[in-house]
């Protein structure tokens, strides 16, 4: 129905020729934009309601009893539902450490929370289908669990900034919200978020539509296809310093994949962009000494690269 509407708008109302480059690009743009905004609005709202049941204060209490392994798995899963904003990374990290959550478990959470988020999932589901979306969640959670376990095993506690251990944390009075309050809060979360990300979505879909309409079929196969062994690490190296949200990156990667970029390479690139970023590193520098920060980024980057190779080999 949506596809028919987009085609009607582009070919009948705007009078563009079917099969022409401009026509195809415009059709792609209109269809994807409408679809993504419908998905974004409904799902961000629903996720915001679900998330209101998992505030970080509760997650922390839950994980502080956690042991290794089980704790890492729980942390990675809770990372999906606990709201995370990179500006809260510092209080969150200190809160976890202070209440006795093991360092490795804390890192499982720090990896999964920004990487596996509802916006990435909506965009993947809408543009790539549910299979890729599931693969993304599955590998994101796995990377978070494994990276956290490795960091735990390395016993790097002394590379946390010293002042972190001296902070005394207060207890917040837990206020239970009523369901109508949750709905109201979800709305006041969704609207500003949409207002913030819409330019990225439009820009991402626009660039994607341009590639879709104008780039020759298969032009990326030679450079980023499954045959080039360097494609995955290069994609990760480009993705790590990039700071963008999933909303802007995913439409572009979809078009790149269509033109021959291998699936594993595309996944690795998206994960590198969402999980690791320069601004996040600068924020985390407040709580981590350089060595731990580099270890953290290194382990996650290697895990993402291996995941990229894995899916290039099996898909």
């Amino acid at each position, binding site marked *: 129905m949506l596809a028919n509407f987009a085609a009607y708008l582009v070919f009948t109302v705007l009078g563009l020729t079917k099969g022409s480059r401009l026509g195809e690009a415009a059709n792609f743009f209109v269809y994807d934009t409408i679809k993504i905004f419908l998905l974004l609005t409904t799902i961000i709202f629903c996720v915001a309601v679900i998330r209101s049941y998992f505030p970080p*204060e509760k997650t922390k209490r839950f994980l502080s009893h956690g042991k290794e392994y089980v704790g890492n798995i729980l942390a990675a899963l809770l990372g999906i539902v606990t*709201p995370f904003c990179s*500006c*809260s990374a510092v*209080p969150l990290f200190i809160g976890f450490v202070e209440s006795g959550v093991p360092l490795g478990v804390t890192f499982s959470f720090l990896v999964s929370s920004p990487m596996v988020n509802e916006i990435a999932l909506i965009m993947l589901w809408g543009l790539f289908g549910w299979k890729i979306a599931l693969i993304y969640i599955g590998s994101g959670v796995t990377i978070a669990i494994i990276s956290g376990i490795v960091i735990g095993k390395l016993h790097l506690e002394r590379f946390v900034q010293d002042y972190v251990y001296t*902070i*005394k944390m*207060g207890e917040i009075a837990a206020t239970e919200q009523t369901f109508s309050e949750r709905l109201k809060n979800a709305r006041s979360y969704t609207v500003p978020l949409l207002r913030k990300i819409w330019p990225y979505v439009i820009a991402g879909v626009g660039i994607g539509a341009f590639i879709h309409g104008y780039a020759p079929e298969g032009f990326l196969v030679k450079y980023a296809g499954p045959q080039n062994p360097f494609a995955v690490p290069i994609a990760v190296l480009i993705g790590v310093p990039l700071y963008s949200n999933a909303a802007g990156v995913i439409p572009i990667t979809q078009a790149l994949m269509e033109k021959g970029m291998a699936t594993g390479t595309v996944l690795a690139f998206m994960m590198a962009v969402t999980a690791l970023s320069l601004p996040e590193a600068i924020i985390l520098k407040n709580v981590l000494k350089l060595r731990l920060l580099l270890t953290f980024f290194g382990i996650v980057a290697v895990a993402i690269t291996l995941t990229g190779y894995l899916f290039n080999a099996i898909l």
Partner: protein
Amino acid sequence: MKIEVLGTGCSRCKQLHENIMQAVIAADVEADVSKVEDITEIMRYGVMSTPALVIDGVVKTVGKVPSVEELKTILAKD
């Protein structure tokens, strides 16, 4: 009353500070509004997601930027 905006200086924290200033003027209350950017101070309140709003030492909202209207309601309750 004493109003504190907790946050390490991100854009959402600045937005909350702006909104509460407007709400204070609109609600016409006597208030001393300050920003708390020191992480040790922030943690003392038990807050793990910023920005947070504290009125007379009590944490009112955490990890969100309420609208001016909502803030006026919060101010009215106190």
